[in-house]
């Protein structure tokens, strides 16, 4: 048999799950080098755009796959992550995910960027700001976000310290940098929502109207997006993202909602569209499109619903063995290394 062409080998390998590729790195030195090349990793990523779920529950992390054989009854797999099993772990907070990299905080101020598919991880060096008492403190907590800036090919962790100072950690430079002060008020305590190379948080603007603060990661500058006209109080709302569209959801422990908003055209206030959902919720988090036709959402941190956007009907998706309440985010399978700057 004549030798298989290099391009064909790349074609075949780029279709494989990360676990197979991690194993086949031991086939030969050529295959080891080939599968670490940025071009190969990019090709592999482009073939693995189907989103999976990462769930945080009871000090552990789990993953759920759309491709799992059983339709209604899903079995989450336990995930390995840095500091897994550590006695000081609390809720594993998930701060965002991009291109297969997930940023987590298993303990206060201990940040990790890890790839659940390859199990590679790196610990973010301590933030220079976090231990300082801040005279201009707006709120008593820090808020974070994690995203990818395609124009500079860098992944960044954002910390908004006590609602006023903003710091950005660059994975490429392995260092923290202070950027402008946070220009808004009443920053809510949820991790930012990432899309279009920017991280978004809901807060209050200078005119006492709610605004969505958008931090462009490459330019490291804030701009403000307007929520829908009828949203007059930022309290009780959260942001989310559904396939590159920003969403705004009501999160309220007292009133049950049936509506959420989706910004069909980024930055265009008039494009905010109400989406009606048949099942009421106290909190709702849009996750991803499920098998191309339905939308998967997490309701009340207790269950997942398959929602038909055409008529608002919902079907419950059971995740066996998952303790409630849980937090969930989406990620994709990739070979991107959190230590890519070292290659």
């Amino acid at each position, binding site marked *: *048999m*004549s*030798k*298989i*062409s290099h*391009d*064909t*080998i790349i*074609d*075949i*390998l780029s*279709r*494989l*799950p990360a*676990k*197979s590729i*991690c*194993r*086949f*790195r*031991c*086939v*030969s*030195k*050529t*295959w*080891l080098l080939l599968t670490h090349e940025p071009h190969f990793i990019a090709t592999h990523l482009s073939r693995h755009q189907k989103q999976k779920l990462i769930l945080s529950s009871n000090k552990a992390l789990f993953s759920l796959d759309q491709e799992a054989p059983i339709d209604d009854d899903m079995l989450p797999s336990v995930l*390995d992550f840095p500091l897994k099993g550590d006695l000081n772990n609390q809720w594993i907070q998930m701060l965002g995910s991009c291109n297969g990299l997930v940023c987590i905080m298993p303990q206060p101020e201990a940040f990790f960027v890890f790839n659940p598919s*390859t*199990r590679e991880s790196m610990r973010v060096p301590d933030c220079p700001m976090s231990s300082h008492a801040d005279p201009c403190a707006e709120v008593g907590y820090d808020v974070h976000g994690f995203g990818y800036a395609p124009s500079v090919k860098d992944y960044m962790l954002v910390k908004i310290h006590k609602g006023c100072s903003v710091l950005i950690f660059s994975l490429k430079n392995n260092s923290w940098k202070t950027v402008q002060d946070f220009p808004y008020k009443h920053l809510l305590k949820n991790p930012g929502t990432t899309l279009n190379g920017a991280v978004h948080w809901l807060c209050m603007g200078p005119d006492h109207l709610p605004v969505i603060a958008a931090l462009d990661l490459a330019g490291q500058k804030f701009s403000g997006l307007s929520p829908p006209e009828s949203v007059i109080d930022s309290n009780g709302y959260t942001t989310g993202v559904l396939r590159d569209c920003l969403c705004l959801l009501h999160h309220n422990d007292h009133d049950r909602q049936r509506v959420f908003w989706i910004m069909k055209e980024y930055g265009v206030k008039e494009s905010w569209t109400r989406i009606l959902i048949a099942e009421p919720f106290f909190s709702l988090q849009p996750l991803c499109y499920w098998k191309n036709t339905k939308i998967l959402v997490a309701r009340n941190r207790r269950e997942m619903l398959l929602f038909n956007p055409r008529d608002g009907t919902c079907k419950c998706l059971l995740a066996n063995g998952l303790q409630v309440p849980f937090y969930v985010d989406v990620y994709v399978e990739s070979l991107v290394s959190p230590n890519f700057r070292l290659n």
Partner: protein
Amino acid sequence: MSTPAENEASIKQESGPSGTVQDKPKKIVVRTGDGEVFELKEEVAMEMETIKTFFMEDNISYETVMPLTNVDSWELVKVIEYCSKYVELKNKENFHKELKAFQDEFVKSMSPKTLLSLSNVANYLEIKYFLDFICQAIADHIKSKDVEYVRELFGVENDFTEEEYEMAKTEAPWAHENLDKDLY
């Protein structure tokens, strides 16, 4: 079988404008590397970019026998089988379902090694959807196989020392667990 010289002679006599409308379906003739001559239906032959370019680019008459030196006859048989089916199903309603059923049978009828060598042919003949299918079939097949199996299949030499191999393995020891038990 006629000699190349005789073929040349008959071509000179019969060639005409390549755009001539004919009543019967056009055939394209090729000769494989191991000397066998095949007649292909035009619509099937045109699925292969290499053949298409050969005839279309310089307006070469269909009387010319195109040499496919890098293709063996058994390989061409398989390619014709796949492309003919694809062309047949292309405009049907159940295209995806029926193609999938055919693909499953096609894969079953071949050993992994023969499937892999077809990838070279798919490349050479430039049949994108066929190459796509072959690569996916091989990927599906090797997904849960171990390192030794894959080396054997691809004919790759292990250039790691024992030490280097163990070191490479420690990068992701979990990736070597829970593999296919029936290996060959």
